[in-house]
């Protein structure tokens, strides 16, 4: 397709459409001849949650228009997945939302298991839930740290990463890797928990429960400057949040209690008790509180799983070559950032025909276009802290 033809075609279907890639720039001139200022935030920026370019139109310090330009980390994962065997796609999914790898693997494996109608053994499901909740902790705690780092407090992020390192030590003992685990396989998990692991996790969770308040709540929750910077910023109403398509903590901080673990139950979640955490305020402070309480809920779930862990094998018997029948499969998990869904289409061969990832970071980022205009420039960073996107997620 030639460039001219494509432009013409795009313009016919979008009457008066924009020039690709550039903001339409109405000159806002009043009688003083004042104009808005166009500015770029990123892609090289120390606190952009990844490689993101925000094209901003500023009126002094107020943002008039905010347009995220993405694609700096686009690795064409969906295309690559069409050339790899089904189990070989799992390491690719690891690298989607790289702060919460287990959930990505889980989503993909659920989709393929739905396609193939595989029964996963209960012990494997319990281990999957255990790992997912540990990963949720390892993701929410740095989120709190990032929020504060962008506000200018440089210390909580180091406390957060200390906790994450401890959790990653546990992961390393179980899976062999600190970050890209390749642990959840189609039909179960790769290997059983090592000896003494349950005790070690239990002790760690007890110590985290004791120190969580001191590290992440006491210095932050009542801090005047933190409250002044985050209360009322990024105000969302429930209606707006649902329209934008938010899921996860950004949606729950407005008061809508939707959680895939409870409303579309999967894996071993029907066997554990937990509360879905919501907050009424809908601003950045509310999202901070939601994440803190979700950490406590995760610790609760982990303790229940450790108490009730069933015995048995950890992998279903699927044979060496996975050749699913023709059809399609869907999997949906609750990642730390929202609803992560995978759609796998098979044509009977041993490579997928199409894999599509619905990543929560991608969808939640639409909030930037809608909510940021009207706020000040320094407010963009707390709003990013509310959405908490990860660039592997929005860019695939």
């Amino acid at each position, binding site marked *: 397709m030639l460039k001219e033809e494509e432009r013409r075609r795009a313009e016919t279907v979008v009457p008066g459409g924009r020039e690709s890639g550039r903001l339409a720039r109405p000159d806002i001139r009043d009688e003083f001849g004042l104009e808005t200022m166009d500015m770029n935030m990123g892609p090289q920026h120390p606190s952009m949650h990844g490689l993101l370019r925000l094209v901003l139109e500023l009126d002094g310090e107020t943002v008039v228009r905010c347009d995220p330009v993405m694609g700096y980390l686009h690795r064409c994962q969906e295309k690559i997945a069409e*050339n790899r065997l089904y189990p070989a796609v799992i390491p690719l999914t690891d690298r989607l939302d790289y702060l919460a790898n287990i959930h990505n693997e889980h989503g993909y494996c659920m989709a393929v298991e739905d396609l193939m109608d595989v029964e996963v053994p209960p012990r494997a499901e319990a281990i999957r839930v255990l790992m997912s909740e540990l990963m949720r902790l390892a993701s929410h705690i740095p989120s709190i740290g990032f929020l504060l780092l962008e506000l200018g407090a440089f210390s909580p992020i180091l406390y957060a990463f200390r906790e994450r390192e401890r959790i990653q030590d546990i992961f390393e003992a179980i899976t062999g890797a600190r970050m890209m685990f390749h642990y959840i396989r189609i039909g179960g998990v790769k290997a059983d928990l090592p000896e003494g692991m349950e005790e070690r996790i239990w002790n760690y969770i007890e110590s985290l429960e004791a120190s969580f308040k001191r590290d992440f709540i006491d210095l932050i929750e009542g801090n005047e400057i933190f409250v002044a910077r985050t209360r009322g910023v990024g105000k969302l109403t*429930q209606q707006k949040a649902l329209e934008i398509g938010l899921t996860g903590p950004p949606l729950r901080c407005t008061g809508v209690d939707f959680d895939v673990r409870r409303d579309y139950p999967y894996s071993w979640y029907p066997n554990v008790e937990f509360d879905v955490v919501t907050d009424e305020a809908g601003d950045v402070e509310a999202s901070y509180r939601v994440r803190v309480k979700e950490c406590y809920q995760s610790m609760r779930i982990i303790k229940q799983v450790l108490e009730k862990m069933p015995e048995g094998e950890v992998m279903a018997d699927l044979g060496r070559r996975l050749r699913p029948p023709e059809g399609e499969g869907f999997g949906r998990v609750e990642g730390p950032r929202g609803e992560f869904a995978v759609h796998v289409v098979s044509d009977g061969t041993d490579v997928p025909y199409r894999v599509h990832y619905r990543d929560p970071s991608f969808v939640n980022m639409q909030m930037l276009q809608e909510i940021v205009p009207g706020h000040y420039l320094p407010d963009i960073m707390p709003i990013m802290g509310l959405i908490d996107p990860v660039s592997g997620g929005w860019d695939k």
Partner: protein
Amino acid sequence: MTVSLPEGDLQERLERYLEGFREHAELQESGIEEDVVRVVVEPELVPRVLTVARDVLGIMHLSFITVVDRRGHFDLTYELLDLRGGRVRVKTTLEGEEPVIESVTGIYPTANWHEREAYDMFGIAFRGHPDLRRVYTWQDHFDHHPLLKSFEISTKRTFEGLR
């Protein structure tokens, strides 16, 4: 303002949704399989079906829009969630090499970026979309749509327009 989420037994709700769709729009196929309401329509009727879903049935969340390139036609799937266990899948088929379909951004604003992604990756043009630009690939000189089956992965093709 608070939003009220649906209540009641799941199967009843799914039956109600199916009835609602059958009543308000002409469907090619419809049915409930494994707790999912599956509806197949003509491409022109997709906005009508989604309007029914949002206004009549109260389904508020569009989860994703998937496109599958079937070498000759495109299969689109819109998955809707009523946030309490109910799932609705609206499927449609677009013929031809340069497909055009009506945008649903007016009904579910979250579809904005999903449709941009479909345009970027497959070349599907969405009529009435407020801002149809590429979302992942270069916006200036990259003329291909990567996820089409006819697009081979090759460095030469990718960097054609540069330098």
